[in-house]
């Protein structure tokens, strides 16, 4: 056995959280030691023989990008281990090294048991083949023999609830069906170690529930699962332990709750007013909150909300760079980080809602906010919240049509709702209930 390395001894793990570790005595399934990876990104790449012939002596110029810096980690057998981190933090690179898709520049990775060599759903699916053939192909890619792969076709189809479509070519599948098939294939691989990259939000609610059950089963059956995700809810629900990668280094290993909170703190912390926040800057930091407040009906600022008042919120958001067709999403969370509600607002969608007052908010849904311009957004809604502490966040998305999903979440404000008649659940209702006693 290799030396047992707990997270406290890990280099580059500055904050160890004293989370309990149920697998402390179990054998190590994945041992990562000092793994580093640097990518060379060509600046003026010569990618044809012709260019090489024309410029025979021009050197290939590269800039280097450090993706992983001396990562060390032990994942124990039977652990459900979450890896979280921002885009570009190196978490997917680490997963690809574990999956033998990339080769580490230095350091060693050792594993015990058979690895399912997939990191994404539906890899290698061929649209021109029937589902049945795809399941076999996938099974063989995962290391089964053809006979074994054939044996499990029915089980896979059954789990995916796609028995009737076994001989339908995949190109005729809906995307939801394809995802279900892909997920089932992965779950049926029966490998000892599974690497999963962002797959949890698939299928309809009943299929998600099924997947959740399977994840719990996997956890209980002693399989080792490494999950890379942005979804803190998934990490907190399934994982025994989680790691936060930040700037190519291990930032923190420990209890999923704590890691999740640290992740949110790193990413969604209210932007410190100046440019000094660069170290923590979310890529595409393009808006900042100038002000946000609660009002009473008279337009007076209030800190907290009394039960019988409407929720009236005003916020001023300043664009730091040009925002084309921005979308503002407002989301309310309670103290348990439960998402209470959310809605999107497109300032240029509707001329009636041209609150920014720059006059170009015409009815065609197109428009932009120049850098430095401010939007004042106000909204009002009935208060159905129960007593408690609430947090309002705003997500700013730029140019959704073009697929630019560069997101930024800003904590707008938090407030306490008080003086509501105590009620169960997270919201109050005023039902009109009618009882007739017959007989």
């Amino acid at each position, binding site marked *: 056995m290799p030396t047992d390395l707990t997270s406290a001894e890990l280099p580059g793990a500055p904050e160890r959280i004293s989370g309990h570790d149920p697998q402390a005595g179990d054998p190590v399934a994945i041992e990562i030691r000092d793994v580093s990876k640097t990518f060379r990104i060509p600046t003026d790449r010569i990618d*044809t023989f012709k260019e090489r012939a024309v410029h025979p002596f021009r050197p290939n110029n590269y800039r280097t990008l450090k993706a992983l810096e001396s990562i060390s980690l032990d994942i124990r057998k039977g652990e459900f281990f979450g890896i979280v981190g921002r885009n570009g933090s190196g978490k997917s690179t680490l997963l690809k090294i574990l999956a*033998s898709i990339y080769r580490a520049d230095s350091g060693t990775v050792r594993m015990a048991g058979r690895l399912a060599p997939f990191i994404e759903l539906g*890899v*290698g699916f061929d649209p021109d083949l029937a589902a049945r053939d795809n399941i076999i192909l996938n099974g063989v*890619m995962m290391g089964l023999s053809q006979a074994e792969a054939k044996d499990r076709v029915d089980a896979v189809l059954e789990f995916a609830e796609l028995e009737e479509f076994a001989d339908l070519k995949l190109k005729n599948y809906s995307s939801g069906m394809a995802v279900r098939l892909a997920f089932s294939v992965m779950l049926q691989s029966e490998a000892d170690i599974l690497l999963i990259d962002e797959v949890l939000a698939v299928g309809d609610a009943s299929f998600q529930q099924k997947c959740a059950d399977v994840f719990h089963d996997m956890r209980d059956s002693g399989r080792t699962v490494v999950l890379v995700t942005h979804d803190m809810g998934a990490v907190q629900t399934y994982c025994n332990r989680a790691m936060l990668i930040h700037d190519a280094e291990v930032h923190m290993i420990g209890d999923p709750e704590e890691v999740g909170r640290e992740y949110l703190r790193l990413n969604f912390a209210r932007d410190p007013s100046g440019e000094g926040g660069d170290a923590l800057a979310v890529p595409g930091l393009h808006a900042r909150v100038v002000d946000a407040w609660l009002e009473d009906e008279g337009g007076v600022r209030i800190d907290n909300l009394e039960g019988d008042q409407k929720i009236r919120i005003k916020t001023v958001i300043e664009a730091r760079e040009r925002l084309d067709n921005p979308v503002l999403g407002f989301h309310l969370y309670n103290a348990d980080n439960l998402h209470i509600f959310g809605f999107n607002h497109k300032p240029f969608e509707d001329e009636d809602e041209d609150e920014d007052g720059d006059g170009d908010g015409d009815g065609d849904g197109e428009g932009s906010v120049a850098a430095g311009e401010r939007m004042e957004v106000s909204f009002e809604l009935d208060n159905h919240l129960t007593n408690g502490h609430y947090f309002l966040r705003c997500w700013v998305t730029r140019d959704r049509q073009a697929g630019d999903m560069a997101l930024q979440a800003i904590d707008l404000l938090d407030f306490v709702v008080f003086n509501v008649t105590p009620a169960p659940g997270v919201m109050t209702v005023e039902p009109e209930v009618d009882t007739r006693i017959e007989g």
Partner: protein
Amino acid sequence: MEAGTVTMPTAEVGQEEQSELREITGPAALGGGRKRFLELLVLMSVTDFKKTYFGTMLGYLWSLLRPLMLFGVLLVVFTKILRVGSTIPNYSMFLLINIVLFGFFQEATMNATQSVVAREGIVRKTQFPRLVIPFSATATGLFNLLVNLIAVFGFMLASGLYPRLSWFMLIPVILALTALTAGMSMLLSALYVRRRDTLIIWSVLSMALFYGSAVLIPVEFAGETLQKIMFINPIVPILVQTRVWMIDPNAPTAVELAGGWAHLIPAAVVFIAVCVLGWWYFNREAPRVAEEL
């Protein structure tokens, strides 16, 4: 789900080794066990083959039609217009078998060139022996060749050739050609990842090779000097021997044409060099292919 209750027997990981830590070495040309390699190779090439044959209405006919039409055109040119063919015994069968054999080499290497890039999705997302990809292009071509050869044998019998024991020598001919194709495929598919004009260059080079392999006219028609040069090309002796074994037992053998065994050494060196170079280069590039794509 009976997760974890079934232990899969695999080529390398036995049940008793399951709890033992083994170092993973990252992506490679080979690796993951011989059995898995073969399973993948067979499945991928059979799948590709099936797709071409059952994907379209006239699947098999189409793939047969191409060499046959080329054969028809060339036959007319070389027997009716140039009249070279009429002086050669069984010229039509000589031409047909050459076109089919060279066509295998040409098509398989062309398909292999783009194969790694075309399968970008799985290269970047899963771990598997990278060598499967160019090899499966070769294997698909090989299936194609075997199917085409059925038609060739039909024509040969119809044209009055009697089956001889030496027809079995077609097996080593195909093996040699397959090895050369695989070697070239490894080289080209790895080159294409870095240099995207590989395909254009190879399509021109393979056209030159078509003429340099004496596919159309027996090599002895080329003249002393040119013939010596052409014998550096390993495809030339392969096709010369095919003619002797399959079509015309009285045709000059490769040894006779080259002027002794010693003169076949350059062709053998080129043959081995292509295979070794292909393997060496592919093996060198395989670990980084996923990053280069």
